[in-house]
């Protein structure tokens, strides 16, 4: 398992190389949402890192509307000396395929939670696609299942900020009169207990991160077992640059003691996210009353009732007749079965049948308020 870090200054190069880091990412302001480098600085760092035998990838994770895309992509076409390009936007992927000769590292951290989605890119990018950076929403079991089928290098975020929200709109600068390139703040939602969301606004818009950083590095052996090829470390939001030394020590000796030291000195608490399991869809059933959901046997729904007299219904499925045996289920889930003995149309006249879409009346059934479902037995 190899380590990938963000190279932010030349003075870190020796440290990274000595620690055993094999890959460095260069994040340029115009192309990367959290980029700090100019394009020229990146070219310079690329030369130095390559000379030390490091693999360098250029980070293009920003989303761009057409005018900006056109303007900035020209810059890359003129000169792109990097070994690989890390791309998120589908348009950027296609552009890189058509205009550059570098390896492609796909940033699949938004969606791509099924193998088929990744296959769609494999088919189109062929051998140019070398690596996929997978979503932090994927549990380890899924990655383990995919690994032998993918035939690609797999990268995950091992330690770093977890981006929750990205808007192109300027949401922080509007709250202050300060003029600067980047606004940094912390947000506390009134939805307790969520506090301490790191916030940033720069030329790419406004970004909000999870109050805790994602860390899988406590599961180092599990990562290896499931087939992770590259573990990414993102130290860039740490206040003290001294963290680089501790991170390098951990990378060179990924054991409990170096990890604990790193954790003690890391600015934010750590969390594992969905590494063990992802059950983010299990609450959906509770978002609406399942007793109201339509069933294939359902033939009508109660609109209103008059006690001891009638129920007004709307026929929504199979037709009803005066002899129908029906089951009613109210919104609380209570059901009962009865046999009809009369049926009236919307003019309150006896009829032999009500068709789909028609309004009609049946005898009163207690405990059957509006929205009660009626099914044929």
């Amino acid at each position, binding site marked *: 398992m190899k380590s990938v870090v963000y190279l932010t200054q030349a003075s870190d190069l020796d440290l990274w190389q000595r620690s055993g880091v094999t890959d460095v990412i260069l994040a340029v302001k115009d192309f990367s949402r959290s980029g700090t480098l100019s394009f020229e600085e990146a070219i310079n760092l690329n030369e130095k890192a390559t000379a030390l035998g490091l693999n360098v990838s250029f980070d293009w994770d920003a989303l761009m509307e*057409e005018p900006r895309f056109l303007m900035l992509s020209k810059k890359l076409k003129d000169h792109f000396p990097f070994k690989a390009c890390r791309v998120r936007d589908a348009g950027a992927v296609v552009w890189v395929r058509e205009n550059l000769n570098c390896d492609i590292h796909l940033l699949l951290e938004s969606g791509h939670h*099924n193998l088929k989605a990744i296959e769609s890119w494999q088919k189109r990018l062929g051998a140019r696609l070398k690596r996929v950076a997978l979503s932090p929403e994927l549990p380890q079991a899924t990655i383990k299942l995919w690994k032998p089928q993918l035939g690609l290098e797999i990268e995950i975020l091992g330690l770093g900020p977890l981006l*929750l929200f*990205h808007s192109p709109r300027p949401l922080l600068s509007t709250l202050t009169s300060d003029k600067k390139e980047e606004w940094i703040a912390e947000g*506390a*939602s009134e939805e307790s207990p969520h506090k301490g969301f790191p916030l940033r606004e720069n030329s790419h818009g406004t970004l909000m991160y999870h109050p805790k950083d994602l860390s899988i590095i406590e599961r180092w052996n599990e990562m290896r077992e499931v087939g992770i090829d590259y573990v990414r470390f993102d130290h860039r939001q740490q206040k003290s640059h001294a963290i680089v030394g501790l991170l390098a020590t951990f990378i060179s000796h990924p054991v409990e003691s170096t990890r604990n030291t790193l954790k003690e000195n890391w600015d934010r608490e750590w969390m594992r996210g969905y590494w063990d399991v992802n059950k983010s869809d299990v609450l959906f059933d509770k978002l*609406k009353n399942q007793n109201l959901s339509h069933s294939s046997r359902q033939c009508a729904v109660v609109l*209103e009732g008059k006690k001891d007299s009638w129920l007004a219904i709307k026929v929504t499925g199979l037709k009803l007749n005066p002899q129908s045996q029906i089951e009613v289920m109210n919104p609380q889930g209570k059901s009962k079965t009865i046999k009809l003995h009369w049926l009236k149309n919307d003019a309150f006249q006896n009829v032999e049948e009500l068709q789909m879409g028609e309004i009609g009346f049946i005898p009163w059934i207690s405990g059957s308020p509006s929205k009660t479902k009626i099914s044929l037995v």
Partner: protein
Amino acid sequence: MNHFTPELLAPAGNLDKLKTAILYGADAVYCAGQDYGLRAAADNFTQEELAVGVQFAHERGSKVYVVLNGFLHDEDLAGLPKFIQFLDSIKVDAVIVSDPGVALLVKEHSTIPLHVSTQASVLNLHGVKAWSELGATRVVLGREVTVHDAGTLQRTSGIEMEMFVHGAMCMAYSGHCVISNFTQGRDSNRGGCAHSCRFSYDIKFEDGQRESSFFMSSKDLEGLSVLPRFVQEGIVSLKVEGRMKSELYAATTTRVYRQALDFWKNHGSWENAPWMKWQEEMRKLPHRDETTASLIAPAGSDSIYDEREHVDQSWAMAGVILAASSERGVMIECRHTFDQTSQLEVLTFKGDVIELPVREMCAPDFTSIEKTKPSSLIRFPWIEGLAAGQVIRLKKVRS
């Protein structure tokens, strides 16, 4: 002479709303089955309802697009091929996807045209190309794209462009917000969005400055005033947001945008267009403050709705007409309380609204009543112009 007019695409959260939108003039509606969409809390459609809805739409010359726009996990895909084949069998007019894996499955298992959801945040020409490689014939562009740029993308790519024209908006790039996923355990990209962006946040800046703000809450999109630009750029389809909203919303938005688009279609000019009248109609719906967002230029700080959610409602939905004929009179399903002092208006499918005097109101069994209750049925005498499916609104009296 008819002039190019964009398709009016309306939301259909359930079968009743589908019928409402179509009766009020939608060229097409979009809706979801019980799974695979982004509105887990919406009623959505059973397969039987989808079949009925498609038939209802096609009989009236309208189209039905079914959303399959969740970011799906492997286990979600198990039943998808069968559902796709079902959609093909009932002849839906397109499916709307945002996940490349879902796009591949649609192509493998059907001949249904493929539209790309705004959830995929397609923002540029190469993004359009990426999806056309997967067989997409239409792209619902990211809401960050201007109408002008959308026109250029459409002309350059040869792919149809669809844009949101009205309704609530995500502040984030669509598909790039996972707040609910990591704070509520609800996958926003599979239908579980908890709307955390609508809450107030205390913001503390590096220098210690503190502000309390609904800074992530967006104003609602208002594209009525931008219609001439959409038309000028030849944008193929204009989409109204709001599958979770009421039939009053479906009726009002569809009716007003239909009238505006028909005005253009019939005149080929916006001269003397009754903009004020259309805007006044739209103001009768509950809404947040409005913005044109990025339709004209990239949205700025004035697009933030820095307020707690509240309903500023001068009119409410009074009910919907279930049946109407000169012989049997009118039957109304009430959604609100009203009595003889109330001011009611019926939104006709075409033409002006009809004032509905509240008199001779009676219960379904013809017993006289003075006041309605929500979820009750009432009978009214027949009035020329009333028809089943029409929505009735009630002027709210401020206490």
